[in-house]
């Protein structure tokens, strides 16, 4: 069975996460023939093009450029099963935050306006150098998760997916190899992270919102109740609560729980609970607990802005 692994707009962490499987990866190689994996092995695009057919593609990263768009379409054409691997592929991920701005704004910021740039120049799709024409892929106006470009069969969320999720994916690959078509399309829990979170709760509203540097988090107690925004309540579990166990609040890389309308707005609903003693505050100060949040969109859509339904209102 032939497997294609590729990366698009991605940091490379997803590929590393696969390599992080360690010796287990040998089992994968035993069962599957990796016919394309440019990060790990020396493949070029022509190798992909020349492929007649493969069975499964595992693609990480979002679609940011015209080249990536072309690439994922090409892959889709070659395989029976396409797996969106990692938060960027599933929801747009961190690069997706770029969707707050249009392409020109981003390029201008990156190549002209940054404080360390002098006489910056925005890279052009076509540049003439002597007699040669150099071309660059087009920087698209928006970051797109894979399923906005091609049909996606399975989603493996995570930034990057945790080792237990990857093991589940290998399981999935083996099932596909056996000719099965598992119905569970998202390789994460249908329950939120809270369901598997080991921390205890007193079932009280967060008295305020503390920015991470403001307090030392209690390692045993629910982050949210300490006033540290943890998005575990709106995020699918299945990651093994690895951040939580390292005393870091959840940022939502596994995406929204299945019945939530939208990650960000559902997150807002509960974040707005924060506060205490509002009865004693003058009206202008009532919202002060949440006024501390500096970048609302960056917080509530850290991994999924391209999937935001709020953004659709535009």
């Amino acid at each position, binding site marked *: 069975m032939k497997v294609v692994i590729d990366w698009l707009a991605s940091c490379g962490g997803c590929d590393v996460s696969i390599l992080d499987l360690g010796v287990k990866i040998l089992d994968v190689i035993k069962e599957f023939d990796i016919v394309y994996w440019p990060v790990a092995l020396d493949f070029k695009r022509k190798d992909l093009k020349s492929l007649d057919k493969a069975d499964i593609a595992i693609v990480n990263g979002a679609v940011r450029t015209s080249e990536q768009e072309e690439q994922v379409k090409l892959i889709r054409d070659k395989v029976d099963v396409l797996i969106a691997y990692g938060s960027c592929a599933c929801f747009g991920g961190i690069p997706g935050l770029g969707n707050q701005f249009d392409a020109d704004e981003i390029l201008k910021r990156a190549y002209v306006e940054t404080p360390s740039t002098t006489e910056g120049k925005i890279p052009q799709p076509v540049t003439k150098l002597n007699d040669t024409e150099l071309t660059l892929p087009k920087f698209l106006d928006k970051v797109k998760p894979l399923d906005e470009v091609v049909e996606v069969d399975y989603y493996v969320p995570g930034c990057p997916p945790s080792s237990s999720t990857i093991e589940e994916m290998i399981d999935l690959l083996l099932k596909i190899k056996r000719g099965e078509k598992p119905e569970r399309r998202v390789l994460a829990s249908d329950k939120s992270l809270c369901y598997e979170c080991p921390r205890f*709760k007193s079932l009280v*509203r967060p008295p305020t919102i503390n920015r991470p540097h403001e307090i030392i988090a209690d390692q045993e107690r629910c982050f949210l109740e300490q006033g540290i925004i943890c998005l575990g309540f709106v995020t699918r579990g299945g990651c093994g609560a690895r951040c939580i166990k390292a005393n870091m609040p959840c940022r939502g890389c596994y995406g929204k729980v299945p019945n939530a*309308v939208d990650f960000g707005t559902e997150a807002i609903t509960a974040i707005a*609970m*924060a506060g205490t003693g509002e009865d004693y505050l003058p009206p202008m100060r009532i*919202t002060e607990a949440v006024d501390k949040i500096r970048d609302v969109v960056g917080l509530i859509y850290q991994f999924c802005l391209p999937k935001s339904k709020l*953004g659709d209102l*535009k």
Partner: protein
Amino acid sequence: MSVGVIICTCGNTINDKIDIDRLVEFAKGLEDVSIVKKVDIFCKNYDQIVQELKGKIDRLLFVGCSERSSLTFNEDKIAQILEKIGLNRAMFEVANIREQCAWVHEDRDGATRKALDQLMMAYVKLRSNRPAGEAVKLEKRVLVVGGGVAGMQCAIDLAKAGIDVVLVERNPYLGGHTAQIPLLFQCEGWSSMCTSECIVPVIARETTFNDRIKIITNAEVKEVEKVNGNFYVTIEQKPQFVDPNKCVSCGKCAEVCPVEVPNEFDMKFGKRKAIDKDFALAIPDTYNIVDEYCNRCGECLKVCPTNAINFDAKPSIYNYKFGAVVIATGFQEYDLSKIAELNYAHPDVVTSLEFERLLTKGFKRPSDGKTPESLVFVLCSGSRSENGDGVPYCSKICCSVIMKLANRIATLFPETEITVIYRDIRTPAKLEDFYKMVVNKGVEFVKGEVDEITDENGKLKVTVFKEDGGEEEIEADMVVLAEALIPAGVQLLKKFGVVTDKFGFPIEFQPRIINPNETYVDRVFVVGTAKGPSIVQESVESGSAVAMRIVEILKDGEKKLQKFVSYVNKDLCSKCGICASMCPHDAIRIKEDGAEVDSAFCRGCGLCMSVCPNHAIQLINFEDKQLLDQVEVAFKHAKEGEPRILAILCYWCSYAAADLMGLKGLKLPANFRTIRIRCSSSVNAGTLLEILKKVDGVLIAGCPPKNCHHGWGNYVSAKRIKLMNEAMKQLGINPDKLRWEYIGVAMWGQLAKAIKEMTERLRS
């Protein structure tokens, strides 16, 4: 399904503004509508129609005046009509075409279009309404915690009305602080007092003799579990070393007991024996042993004529089920040692309650037993504090108490130089007479604040910053501080899930003015000084008042569930517990298999529904889907070209304000529609988002600050919209599409202004 539609013309006054016949025709064309009646003054002539509808319909749609604000036909009246027709109380909806349509719009076409939409919105919701659930059985037994006068009065009145009561008292005796205060105010326009040595035995005997009242002294509430609307309470009673059924209070045991211990009843001024009575008139009339001091010498065993003493007694555990709970845990004195300048550690500086007890032993100062020649009273000791030492509120009764005490000393020991240091004198209502008496007796009043109280060679010196800017030093043999009063039962309130203010006094259910003594937890009441400082007479009053409320609640031994209660789909629940932390009424428990709402404690505010990220909790008859269905049809008849604004208004304040816009004669364009929701905070932001896709603008309004019926619903809503607006701005979406307002009933003008402003902004 068979829907009956009644369209009332309000005595043909609505017809001018709305094409009623068009509404009638429209209603006739709706699926499952079996009867459409056009009536003139339904509120005054409904008998015949009710007869006609009986057995023919299973849902009623009333099209007419506001179910919230109509003075003749509001939801309470509708509930009566439903009962007459034989319909479940959830099976009605109202399309408000009078207050919020005919009265507030001038353009007949626009008003008619809006009336059609409001009718349709009510209709789609009515179709998916679910019947209110079966009644929940309530135990006809009441727990009263605290055997002071308020608790006892409440217990007596309940018992007389045929309700069983368990009265739990921490002390070995009944009477609480009242028993410690020899002279109690009773005021009928003149200053008079009565003695607790009469009052307490009278009320305590009445409590004790009533067979319906089970008194458990020396006990406290250990655990509380709320199940199916009832309270399952575990009460632990300390070992009863002296059997009250055998003890005849002969006192022989105390005579022979070699161990002297401080008597807490007398504050720091008295001693008792390890086996003794706390005070002679204590009820139950039995001796008791202070366990931590008794050395088990056995002398008492030898002399007890009834063999009442048993050193091996064990603690007793009682488990009861209750249908209602009364918290009567009283007050405690603020710890004045926290305020350094008052020098409370000095033996001759005492609190007023300590002074009450001291006087029963004679007017002698604690340090050397001499009768003081000069006495200083310091009012506001810990009360009305602005700097955090003490509490910021006025403890209400202390001025009067000090006047009573000053008057007593001035009368019995006229040579004593008495000075009262005060900021203001607050002797309310009839208690003013006590103040006048003291003034007439020549007591000196110094207006100012105490800087320090020092001991200068055995004489106390009180330094006062006077209000006029000067400083005065007053010498005193003794100082009495009017201590601030703070609640005593804070931990207990927590066990019952009661929301308190930041001092620990329970917050009463809004509107507090007409729900006094009722906490945010259904059927948990608070009486006496547990609710806030009060004189004894007022405490007794509150005990009686609450008993009456409970009698009404428990008379049928069941609670009819309201139309709106939350329920959980456990398959979708992840046990994150956010619903439970949001619930102001302590109606949600997180069980092994998911969150669970106790319907009989649920007040149907929907705050839980709004915060559930996975929409596992829904408020019956206010489900997300019902809301979205309404939105779907809200602007079906609206004129093109005008911004479609949906006003989502809270059940209590804001919807009433919308009614008053019309009543007060304001005129608005007919481009907005209203939905009455439970609490401004019952709409989840995800659902809001879905709504925003279908309309041009959403206005959410809830009760003004400090007035939310569900504790913090309005605040959470304000924060939610603020965050949404912030995110919208960041994403380049016009934030004017979503607006929050605090709108109280009387803020109809503000509501109209907000709607107009939104219309203007969204138009451009």
